[in-house]
């Protein structure tokens, strides 16, 4: 049985630069439950799940992030299979 907005999703997470060092990982598939009381999984839930992992406590609570190659706010509602990238402070140029 499925609903159009499942309360648990699996997303592809990408970590870069300092964040990859903190977590000791550059990419992982993460099963993310919605926050307590919410019917939808947001990018903030991915950040919360990562912050609960070893090393993740040093991730900022509100990092820059991208969903499917585009910068998005933390409140973005995710869909199954989305690619969520946590972006440390940009330093190109």
């Amino acid at each position, binding site marked *: 049985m499925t609903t159009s907005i499942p309360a648990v999703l699996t997303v592809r997470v*990408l970590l*870069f*630069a*300092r964040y990859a060092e903190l977590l000791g990982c550059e990419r992982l598939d993460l099963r993310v439950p919605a926050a307590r009381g919410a019917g939808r999984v947001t990018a903030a839930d991915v950040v919360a799940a990562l912050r609960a992992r070893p090393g993740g406590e040093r991730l900022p609570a509100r990092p820059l992030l*991208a969903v499917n*190659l*585009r*910068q998005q706010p933390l409140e973005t509602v995710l869909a199954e299979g989305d690619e969520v*990238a946590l*972006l*440390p*402070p*940009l*330093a*190109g*140029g």
Partner: protein
Amino acid sequence: MPHLTDAPIDATALATLLAAVAAPDRGGIATFLGLVRDHHAGRVVLRLEYSAYAPMAEVVCAEIVAEAEGRWPAAVALAHRLGPLAIGETAVAVVAAAAHREAAFAACRWVIEEVKRRVPIWKREFYADGTVAWVDPTAAAGVSP
């Protein structure tokens, strides 16, 4: 042509970028080259390494170029180096050609600011004292702790 490159942005690469924007009705080309400096935030830098979220960085670079070409009557080329770089090597090149110099300068200047602001690229610096740090333009110290 991809905007990210592992190959040096040397005189030949610059000539290719210039040729990509030059046209008989464009009388001015403004260029910006960002080079690896030998110091940062008071520390002596030996070399550095750029990494990127490459698929997104390509998309964002293309968006910046398209937006610049929409804001000004200019043709823009942009290249950003990835991987290990030595002091003095070119990290980024922006080239903007227009009929007149005002638009060329304005587009060039805007593109380099947007590249710094929006493109997911990171820089790791290797210092003379043996330490290494991620550059963080938002941090007071200029690097991540």
